[in-house]
C-alpha cells in the first residue's frame, strides 16, 4: 500500500520541482532506404519515418494523461545520413535534410536527429559530402539536428575533421546570422558518441542498433535540488545517498513510460537516459543544484568536485532503477538552457576554462555556449580538439555545441527562445592555435585503448 506522504512527494515532484520526461525518442533505422538516386532514397526515408512514427506523438500524450507525467518532447533519431545517402553518389545532401524535416513535421515531432557522420578514424566520400552540406541543411530546415563523431578512445582523434568542423560551425553561424546563429544550436561534435542517445542535438541511431527502438530521456534537476535542501549542512556521504535516492525515483518514472511506450507502439525498448537536463525555467537548473552543495556561485572552486559527485551519484541511483541505462546519462551543463548557468556566466564567475574542467566529470561537454562572432575557425577547432582529447583520453563521451554569434561580442546577450534559452557571449582565449590545427592528421589512440 502506497502511503499518503509518498503520493504527496510524487505530486510535488511534478507540480513544483519540474520533474518531467524530457523526451521519448524513436530510433528508426534507414539502412534499407539507400537507393541509387536522391529522389528514390528520400521517398523511402519519408515513407518509412511516417510509417513507424506516425502515432508516436499520440501515444506519448496518452501515456502522459494516464500517469499525469509531463512528456515534453517526442522525437526521432535515424541512421547517420552519411551512411544512408552514400549509394546515391550525390554531391549535395541538403535534400535529405529537407526530407527529414518534412517527415518530422508530418509526424508532429519537434526534432529529428541523424544528419550525422561518424568520422573518428577518417572520411568516406559520403562523410565529406555530408559535412559540406551541414551549414545549408541547418539553415534551410527547422527541426533537423546534426552531429559528427570526431574521435573515440579506440581510434584517437581525427584532426582533419576537427579542423573542418571549425570551418563548418563558422559557416553554419553565417548562414543563420539573421537568427543569432541558430544553426549552430542544432549542431554538435562528439568524442565517443553514444549510439542510443535520445537527447538532441546529438541523437542518431547507430549502426549497431535495431530496426526501430524506443529510448527515453528523463530530467529532474529540481527534484534533486529539493532533496538536497532537506539535508543542508550534512556531510557529503549523506548528500551522495540523497542524490541516489532521488535519481532512483526519477529513473523509475522513465522506465515506466519507456516500457509502456514500447508496448503501445509495438517497438522494443532500448534504454533510459537518466540525464539531469536543465531548462531555462527557475527551479530546473543544474547550476542551482551545484550551488546547493554550498557554493556561492556555480563556477567557483569546488564546482568540479561537486559536479563529479553529482554525476556519479545520479548514475548509481539510476542503474539500480533500470537495467537498461544508456545514452549520455549524468548531469548536463549547457549554459543557455540553464537559468543558474546563465546567471553564473553573466556574473563572470563561470568561465569557459572552468566549463572545460567541468566537462571532465559531467555527462557530456561544452554545450550551448555563445562566443564572439569574430572567433576564428581555427580557435573553434582548438576548443573542439581540447574537448575531444578530454573524452578520448579519459574514456568518456564529450561534445562541443558552440555558437559564434555574428556581430556580437563579450558582454552581449543572445536570445534563442524556448528551451534553447538565452546566453551571455563568453570570452575566448584568442591566442592563435592555427598552426597546430593546420597540421591535420590523426592524434593516435591512447595506450589504454588497447584493452584486448
Amino acid at each position, binding site marked *: 500500500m502506497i502511503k499518503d506522504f*509518498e503520493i504527496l512527494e*510524487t505530486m510535488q515532484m511534478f507540480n513544483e520541482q519540474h520533474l518531467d520526461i524530457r523526451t521519448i525518442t524513436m530510433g528508426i533505422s534507414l539502412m534499407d532506404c539507400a537507393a541509387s538516386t536522391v529522389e528514390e532514397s528520400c521517398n523511402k526515408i519519408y515513407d518509412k519515418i511516417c510509417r513507424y512514427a506516425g502515432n508516436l506523438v499520440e501515444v506519448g500524450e*496518452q501515456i502522459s494523461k494516464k500517469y499525469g507525467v509531463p512528456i515534453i518532447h517526442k522525437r526521432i533519431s535515424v541512421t547517420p545520413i552519411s551512411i544512408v545517402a552514400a549509394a546515391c553518389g550525390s554531391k549535395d545532401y541538403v535534400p535529405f535534410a529537407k526530407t527529414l524535416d518534412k517527415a518530422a513535421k508530418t509526424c508532429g515531432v519537434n526534432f529529428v536527429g541523424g544528419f550525422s557522420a561518424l568520422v573518428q578514424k577518417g572520411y568516406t566520400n559520403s562523410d565529406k559530402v555530408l559535412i559540406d552540406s551541414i551549414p545549408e541543411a541547418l539553415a534551410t530546415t527547422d527541426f533537423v539536428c546534426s552531429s559528427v563523431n570526431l574521435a573515440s578512445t579506440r581510434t584517437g582523434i581525427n584532426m582533419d575533421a576537427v579542423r573542418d568542423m571549425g570551418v563548418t560551425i563558422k559557416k553554419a553561424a553565417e548562414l543563420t546570422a539573421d537568427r543569432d546563429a541558430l544553426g549552430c544550436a542544432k549542431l554538435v561534435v562528439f568524442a565517443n558518441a553514444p549510439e542510443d542517445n535520445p537527447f538532441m542535438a546529438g541523437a542518431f541511431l547507430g549502426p549497431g542498433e535495431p530496426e526501430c527502438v524506443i529510448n527515453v530521456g528523463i530530467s529532474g534537476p529540481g527534484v534533486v535540488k529539493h532533496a538536497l535542501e532537506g539535508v543542508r549542512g550534512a556531510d557529503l556521504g549523506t548528500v551522495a545517498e540523497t542524490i541516489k535516492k532521488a535519481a532512483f525515483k526519477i529513473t523509475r518514472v522513465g522506465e515506466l513510460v519507456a516500457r509502456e511506450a514500447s508496448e503501445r507502439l509495438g517497438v522494443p525498448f532500448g534504454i533510459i537516459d537518466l540525464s539531469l537536463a536543465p531548462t531555462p525555467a527557475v527551479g530546473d537548473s543544474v547550476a542551482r543544484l551545484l550551488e546547493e552543495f554550498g557554493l556561492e556561485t556555480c563556477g567557483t572552486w569546488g564546482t568540479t568536485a561537486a559536479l563529479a559527485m553529482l554525476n556519479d551519484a545520479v548514475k548509481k541511483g539510476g542503474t539500480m532503477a533500470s537495467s537498461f541505462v544508456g545514452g549520455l546519462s549524468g548531469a548536463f551543463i549547457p549554459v543557455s538552457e540553464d537559468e543558474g548557468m546563465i546567471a553564473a556566466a553573466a556574473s563572470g564567475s563561470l568561465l569557459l576554462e572552468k566549463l572545460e574542467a567541468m566537462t571532465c566529470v559531467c555527462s557530456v561537454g561544452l554545450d550551448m555556449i555563445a562566443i564572439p562572432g569574430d572567433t576564428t575557425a581555427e580557435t573553434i577547432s582548438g576548443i573542439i580538439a581540447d574537448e575531444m582529447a578530454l573524452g578520448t583520453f579519459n574514456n568518456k563521451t564529450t561534445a562541443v555545441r558552440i555558437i559564434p554569434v555574428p556581430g556580437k561580442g563579450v558582454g552581449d546577450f543572445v536570445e534563442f527562445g524556448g528551451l534553447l534559452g538565452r546566453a551571455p557571449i563568453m570570452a575566448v582565449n584568442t591566442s592563435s592555435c592555427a598552426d597546430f590545427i593546420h597540421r591535420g592528421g590523426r592524434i593516435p589512440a591512447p595506450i589504454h585503448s588497447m584493452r584486448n
Partner: protein
Amino acid sequence: MASGKNNAVISVIGKDKVGIIAKVSTLLAENNININDISQTILDDIFTMIMMVDLQGLKIEESDIKEKLNSLGEELGVAITIQHTDLFDKMHRI
C-alpha cells in the same frame, strides 16, 4: 503494466469548503468508479484528500474523466489530479 490492477490515485488539494468530498464522490459514482480508500486531512486550512479508486475497466487516457475532474476542481477552487497507481508503485517500491 506493472501491477495488472486498474487502480488510480485521485488527489484533491486546496482551500477547505463545504461539499468537496460529496461532489467528488458523486462524480466518481456517475462514472462507475469505485472508491477503495479515502484519507483526508486539513493542514493550515489546506484541504488534502487522497482517494484510492478502482477504475473498473475505464482507461484514464481514453475517457474524459481527467477533464471532468479538472472542471469540478475549478468549480470548487481546488486542484484535482488523477494518476494511475502504477506510477507510485514504480517510484516508491523496489
